[in-house]
């Protein structure tokens, strides 16, 4: 369980997040939605410990999150990972990065680690690319490599920042089918996304954020009024019968 209590965050006196109170229960598949600049990425960076807390607290399994993170890992798929496309590394080596905290400084990966990395790559459907150079992969393939890295440590929690970026429509669908399967297998998932159609189909819980928390409720209960409250008048909802 992840609990966020009275969390506020500002940068140069600009309020990014204001008084956020939120509980993410175990086994939830939650989606964080909101317009650009709503503070979604900031919120997950605070949970992951990338940014220091200013006001409020975050607890994971009842323990202050930074303490918890010292002993445990959270699977994380960043929105955009900066790397040199000429960097001499393979998909396998990047997935192994997800296991480095299990090794002492100076020790090397063993065959068991490589087997686990291969399983994670197989799970995301790109086992055949294990020994390909990272720089030679397409955007969608890269996204799957980074997802495999997030999954390899078999963490209880998985946090994704716009995982559908760089994926085509069938790719997005197969990604969310995989996420749903992982969720059914017991993983607690928090994802940022802009694709409301796909979220309403796969997620159980929607968190509407625009600096303040507008709602956190079951996905089925989210209606046009809540969406307008979160996004303002910048969105128009079109109901489609698929």
């Amino acid at each position: 369980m992840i609990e966020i209590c009275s969390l506020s965050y500002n940068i140069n006196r600009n309020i990014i997040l204001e008084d956020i109170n939120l509980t993410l229960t175990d086994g939830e598949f939650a989606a964080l939605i909101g317009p650009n600049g709503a503070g979604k990425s900031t919120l997950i960076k605070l949970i992951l410990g990338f940014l220091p807390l200013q006001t409020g607290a975050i607890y994971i399994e009842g323990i202050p999150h930074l303490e918890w993170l010292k002993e445990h890992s959270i699977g994380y798929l960043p929105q955009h990972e900066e790397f040199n496309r000429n960097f001499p590394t393979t998909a396998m080596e990047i997935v192994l990065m997800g296991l480095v905290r299990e090794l002492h400084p100076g020790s090397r990966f063993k065959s068991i680690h490589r087997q686990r990395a291969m399983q994670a790559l197989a799970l995301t459907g790109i086992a055949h690319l294990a020994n390909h150079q990272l720089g030679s992969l397409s955007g969608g393939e890269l996204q799957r490599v980074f997802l495999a890295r997030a999954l390899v440590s078999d963490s209880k929690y998985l946090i994704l920042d716009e995982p559908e970026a760089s994926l085509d429509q069938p790719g997005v669908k197969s990604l969310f089918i995989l996420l749903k399967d992982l969720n059914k297998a017991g993983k607690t998932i928090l994802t940022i996304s802009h694709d409301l159609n796909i979220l309403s189909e796969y997620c159980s819980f929607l968190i509407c954020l625009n600096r303040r928390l507008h709602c956190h409720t079951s996905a089925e209960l989210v209606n046009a009024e809540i969406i307008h409250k979160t996004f303002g008048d910048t969105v128009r909802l079109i109901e489609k019968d698929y």
Partner: protein
Amino acid sequence: MYNFIYQAILAALLSSFSLALFSPLVTLRQVSYMGEALSHIAFAGIALALLLELNLQLTTLIFVVIVALAISWLSQKHKLQEANTITIFLSVSMALGIILISLKKGYSFDLESYLFGNVLLVSPAEIYQLVILALLDIFFISFFYKELFYLSYNAEMAKFYRLPVGLVNTIFMILLAANIVITLRAAGIILVSAQLILPAVTSFNLVKRLDYAILCSALIAILAASGGFALSWWLDIPTGANIVLLEFVLYLISLMFRRRQKIA
């Protein structure tokens, strides 16, 4: 006579070898400009040691290490662009060096040998320092290979995965500074940065793995140092410049292999 020659060969081989070991890491971490800056910053350290009549190498080493760590710290803590911070320190250090040298009136100092390097001037004590440096480089790179690999790939993600980024980065900066200062006498302030870049860019044209690139860089350096020394012996021209030119020739040859690989 023969001892003197062996000493010079060893100085050329060891200094090129040590710089080449660091070369792929410096290139991948995109701190090759830092390597060049530190070699120029060393000039102020040398001038300071001369003015205060302190141990030249130790003073320069301490000075360069402090500046290297300051650049790293300022870039991280104050979010300054690393290139800007390096440029500021490089220019200030050069200015400081010129002022300090001018203050030491009536002192004749062979600045040329530090600017361009001269393996013939390397003392037996400096050979021992080069051996220790090479061993330290080998130990550091083999022990922290995994950490260096992921730190070079993406420092922020390496930190997220709980790698000791701060510790490894600090040791890296200290050893980079030590490599530059200790190889200065053999490689020269002007030419040391070329030996920090050329072996790596050549290796990455030939191999696609970091560990292979480190080995390949070391081999390139040994080849260039041996050839460079032989040429300087026969033609009576400076060894440091020969080594850099040979490394450049090897780089040009590697470009052809790179093209062939792409066609294949």
